[in-house]
């Protein structure tokens, strides 16, 4: 050890090693902060880059109006139909995706044979791995003409008296319905994966107790497991909602990008916050138009930020209540 104390080539290796520790922890802490700084920087940049639009329109940008305008030619921007379009597609998506996802999660965690569980969850995860733009291409040329257009015509003919299904779907199928259906496919893996983890984290004693007092398997799932994992599943659903709100490419390609449509019907072309940004950004010539599009991004950022924080807290709470290795 003494040898190491003597400087070699005028370079004290041990001292250098020691000093490395301070530098190391400094770098590690800096990088750790950097991840947090990125979050703040994203918020700050969309806030400051939308300054023109916020100054020009104030709250009228997001205010509910029936005669709202999104008129780049006359530099008049009111985002209400875009906001409602976003919420409508996302909420319909969640209504469709939640029962399917929870059913899949139940099947994977409670019913399917062990050897099938891994391949099955892998295949469901693959649904999330396929790039959004591939969904869009498939949507335009296959899913819309083959499924959405006929389904939309049927809905319009049968339930046309509902305001939600008023009007008639264009022959190409581009509509909010198309966006909702594609989004349903895309958020199902998100909700399924988290719900499956929540179900798998529930201690086996809960299952055994329910079965021991004579519950059928379904009664065990419905009356014991689902209430037990409720807050975690709520987190999963909110995560899915966040993904549905922010999904861009596939939606842009199938929704029709009608930024002034305000009837709220599912069967007509509409627009979402993300699709409007993606569709118009390259064509925005005035500074105000760019700024207004960035303000849409700001709205989207704030909504998804809040939703994700709530969702993560819910999922984390379940994860910390239930030790993950309790299911032997």
């Amino acid at each position, binding site marked *: *050890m003494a040898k190491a104390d003597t400087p070699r080539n005028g370079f004290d290796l041990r001292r250098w*090693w*020691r000093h490395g*520790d301070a530098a*190391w*922890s400094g770098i590690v802490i800096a*990088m*750790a*902060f*950097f*991840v947090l700084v*990125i*979050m703040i920087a*994203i918020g700050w*940049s*969309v806030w400051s*880059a939308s300054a023109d639009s916020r100054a020009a329109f104030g709250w009228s940008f997001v205010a509910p109006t029936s005669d709202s305008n999104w008129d780049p030619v006359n530099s008049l921007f009111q985002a209400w139909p875009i906001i409602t379009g976003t919420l409508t597609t996302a909420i319909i998506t969640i209504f469709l995706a939640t029962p399917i996802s929870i*059913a*899949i999660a139940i*099947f994977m965690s409670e*019913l*399917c044979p062990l050897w099938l569980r*891994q391949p*099955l969850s892998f295949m*469901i*995860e693959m*649904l999330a*791995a*396929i*790039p959004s*733009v*591939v*969904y869009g291409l*498939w949507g*335009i*040329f296959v899913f819309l003409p083959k499924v959405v257009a006929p389904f939309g015509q049927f809905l319009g003919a049968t339930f046309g008296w509902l305001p939600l299904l008023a009007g008639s779907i264009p022959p190409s199928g581009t509509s909010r319905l198309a966006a909702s259906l594609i989004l349903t*496919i895309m958020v199902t893996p998100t909700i399924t994966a988290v719900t499956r983890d929540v179900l798998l984290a529930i201690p086996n004693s809960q299952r055994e107790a329910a079965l021991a*007092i*004579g519950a*059928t398997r*379904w009664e065990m799932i*419905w*009356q014991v497991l689902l209430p037990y994992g409720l807050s975690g599943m709520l987190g999963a659903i909110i*995560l899915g909602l*966040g993904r549905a*709100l*922010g999904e*861009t*490419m596939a939606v842009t*390609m199938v929704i029709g990008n009608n930024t002034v449509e305000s009837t709220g019907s599912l069967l007509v072309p509409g627009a979402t916050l*993300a699709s409007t940004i*993606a569709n118009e950004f390259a064509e925005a010539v005035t500074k105000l138009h760019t700024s207004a599009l*960035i303000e849409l*991004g700001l709205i*989207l*950022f704030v909504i*998804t*930020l809040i939703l*994700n924080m709530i969702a993560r807290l819910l999922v*984390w709470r379940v994860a910390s209540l239930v030790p993950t290795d309790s299911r032997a």
Partner: protein
Amino acid sequence: MSTTTRAAPRGYIQPRAGFLYRRAVNVLMLTLTGVATLLALVPLVWIVVYVLITGGKYINLDLFVRMPVALGDPGGGVLPALEGTIITTVLSTLFSVPVAVLAAFYAADHANTPLGIAIRFGTDVLAGVPSIVIGLFGYALIVVPQGHYSALAAGVAVGIVMLPTVTRTTEEMLKLVPKSLREGSLALGAPEWVTSLRVVLPAAASGVVTGVMLAIARGVGETAPLLFTALGNDRYEVGQIITSGVQGHLPFLTILNRIIDQPVDGLTLTMWKYAQQPFPERIQQAWAVALVLMLFVLLTNIVVRWVVTRNRVAGH
């Protein structure tokens, strides 16, 4: 849901209906969960098979080695898009991996400190920020100050999209490294940073590489962050930039700067543009590109999964 539970007095089960009815509900609902699972696999199989067949019809070597031809002409390729995607992916990996791995070291070592919790929470929330907002961030951060679109801006935006994936996987992998390894190294007199870099990181290396691969697969498939950062540039040709740079005896850094400091194309970006054009040749090329993208993403996931499973089995 809770009506049945509430009706039964606490403490013992009181069937509200006959045994046969309960059995029937049981069988029906369990079958429905299976049906839902099959239902979810329909679009997966449909998309994969359709893209394989359609893309397979139109894929050819020209696609990867030729420049695009004029609108409406047959032939040509998407070389600029392929090169742009590679450059963007390299940049985003260089940007995100060091940051993510080092942040993961902090999160793994200080799991219960306020900053450690904040990082895990922050990365989870960052993973949920829509990628189009991250694209706007890249636009405001780099494109506006520089005054032009560039591969660099795209690399930063996609890097931020990749960041949470790499951080969380690395953190999980670092936590799996046995404490004894770490303590042994420290006991031998190695400082903290040598222990971290030479002992802990190599032990977790395969897991870290897994996370990086998954993040790359995600980054390659992203379109939204490229829209206002890379913009698109169907005249982009790295080979030509290098050749002309070398012939002009330009310094290496100048050539590098020319490669990353101008608008580039991307495979996803090209697909998006081609899909909206009324020319069948372009749409056919979009399908071929879709095939390439999908195969890359699926194969990466399959290989990663296979390696992880094999390691897990070998470890037991």
